[in-house]
């Protein structure tokens, strides 16, 4: 086999890994969409917010320090402690749950029975709010997130593949961990929704709000639950992406990457989110590799969208989505 072929294969493998990262974000979207019919644009910003909060808590920074300093002329910065990663992660998860409660209480509760598109726009507003809040709380400079995940080239894989094919594959260890984490998340979420009481309630709500209400399921509790889980997924995605490329504003743009993944996989399907992510990850890397040099590169910005757009024209509900039936 030629060197070129292996290189393409390697590009594909890396695409698969990147796809897993997209799927992590897409997963959060699907959860909320299934349970409440809300298309949560803020998912990406939630990941950014979670990562910012994690770094802030870990480093013991004082929230709103910049604002307080600017207003009162003080000179605050940190509490002066550093927390172990696991404590910081638990605390951040608690913050995300608190956020879910607040979102339910101050936003969603008031928007029951509105059209889906209004709710979608509300989540765009939420995205802006969280983005501003995150920056005000923790400052807008680029931060380094380190919770002890291994990074860099995986030497085992390189040596093994080198022995097998005579060509060492370059795969980031962080990507492998992301893949494992995504697999664990999907399995546990599937088990949760299949075999627990809350999970069953969640599926009932997804099926029919009114019917779920009539058998005594608390919609409000389910919403808080779903947004908390989505917050947790955002935290995981935030940790992965933050470790990979630093915690900064561009992190929230991964939401924009996750949207075509969703369109491809179908909004209502968890396996769809994973498969869609993999297709987009591989497609975008291969396209950049094969066609990119001919048209000036940086095709990754739009390839996923155009792919999803073309795909949707032929199959409007996505790969695994439920068939859209319209009644007059």
């Amino acid at each position: 086999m030629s060197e070129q072929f292996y290189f393409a294969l390697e590009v594909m493998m890396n695409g698969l890994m990147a796809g897993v990262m997209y799927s992590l974000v897409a997963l959060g979207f699907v959860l909320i969409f299934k349970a409440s019919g809300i298309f949560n644009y803020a998912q990406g910003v939630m990941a950014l917010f979670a990562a910012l909060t994690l770094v802030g808590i870990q480093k013991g920074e004082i929230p709103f320090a910049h604002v307080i300093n600017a207003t009162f002329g003080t000179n605050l910065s940190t509490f002066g402690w550093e927390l172990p990663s696991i404590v910081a992660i638990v605390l951040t998860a608690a913050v995300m749950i608190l956020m879910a409660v607040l979102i339910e209480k101050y936003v969603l509760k008031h928007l029951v029975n509105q059209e889906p598109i209004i709710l979608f726009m509300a989540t765009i507003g939420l995205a802006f709010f969280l983005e501003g809040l995150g920056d005000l709380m923790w400052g807008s400079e680029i931060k380094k997130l380190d919770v002890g995940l291994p990074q860099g080239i995986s030497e085992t894989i390189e040596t093994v593949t080198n022995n097998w094919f005579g060509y060492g594959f370059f795969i980031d260890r962080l990507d492998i961990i992301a893949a494992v984490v995504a697999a664990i998340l999907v399995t546990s979420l599937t088990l949760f929704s299949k075999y627990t009481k809350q999970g069953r309630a969640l599926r009932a709500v997804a099926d029919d709000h009114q019917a779920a209400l009539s058998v005594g399921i608390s919609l409000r509790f389910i919403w808080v639950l779903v947004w908390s889980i989505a917050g947790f997924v955002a935290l995981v995605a935030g940790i992965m992406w933050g470790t990979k490329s630093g915690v900064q504003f561009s992190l929230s743009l991964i939401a924009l990457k996750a949207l075509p993944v969703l369109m491809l996989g179908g909004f209502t399907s968890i396996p769809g989110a994973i498969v869609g992510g993999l297709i987009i990850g591989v497609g975008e890397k291969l396209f950049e590799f094969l066609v990119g040099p001919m048209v000036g590169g940086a095709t990754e910005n739009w390839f996923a969208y155009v792919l999803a757009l073309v795909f949707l024209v032929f199959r409007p509900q996505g790969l695994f989505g439920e068939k859209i039936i319209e009644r007059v």
Partner: protein
Amino acid sequence: MLYREAGDFKASYVEDSQTFPIKFDRMGYYVTLAIAFGIIPFIINDYWANAVVVPFLIYAIASIGLNILTGYAGQVSLGTGGFMAVGAFACYKLMTAFPDINIIFLILISGGITAAVGMAFGLPSLRIKGFYLAVATLAAQFFLVWLFNKVPWFYNYSASGQISAPERTVFSIPVTGPHTEAWAKYLICLIFVFALAWIARNLTRGSTGRKWMAIRDMDIAAEIIGVNPLRAKLSAFAISSFFVGVAGALFFAVYLGAAEVGEAFGTQKSFLVLFMIIIGGLGSIFGSFAGAAFMVLLPVLLKNLLVGGLGWPTDLAANFEVLTVGALIIIFLIAEPHGIAQLWRTAKEKLRLWPFPH
């Protein structure tokens, strides 16, 4: 007492179906026009023109355009920034290729080119609906911005990748380029705003607008009563994109003078215009103006308050602005999903009964 239909007798069908059936409204409209055309050009200065008035007018055109598509025809679009970029780059190419043709025609042609591009991206709307379409229009946004960044022909192979407007005149008064007076910028934008708003208002009142609204309310039902969804949707995309393209051309040629595509016409712009129509009111021409004014004034006010009043550094103020905008969107959607336009309508209803409510 002034705000009444009573005593204002309509003697013909034309009078009966006029845009402003109440005399007070009509007078208000003429007074606004008189002030806008007769007084403001003489008192406007550079600060007001650049910080408030000119961006307001240009965004008003863009939000009327988006309102036609989203508010009237019900097709949510997140590609406004990309379509503005089409208008801007079309205008730039035309300005440099045909220096002798009057800039006003060039701006109109740029709008036409944008309309064609908008129709092409509107084609999937026949199959895709709702958020799927909203996300699909993001494809237009990213693809167009990338295109204008990567293909040097669009920016005439300039080294910086920027486009900058050469000086062009109307009646030998410069309206683009560095030597433009504040009042000239203002007037050329105002003329476009006036003409386009008039067209939009009358389109939405007529059969075209009714078809759009039927499609918005329920497309299958509309099809059954004889609205052709292909024509209705594509005409909405075309006309909306025409407006947005003209806004983009003006934004680049008159307001900015020089532009870099990712910065001037990125996703932020799409969302900004979307927020304008949400806050102003979906499906309302007045709402487009109100929303544009609100979103242009808000940063100016916040900046004056926070940077000038509290002494915050500008980056904090910018973050706070993002937070405020987000919060306002949510508050508006909860309190008044139909935006400022609805508040205005409620106020007018109250006025008609005042001072004797029942």
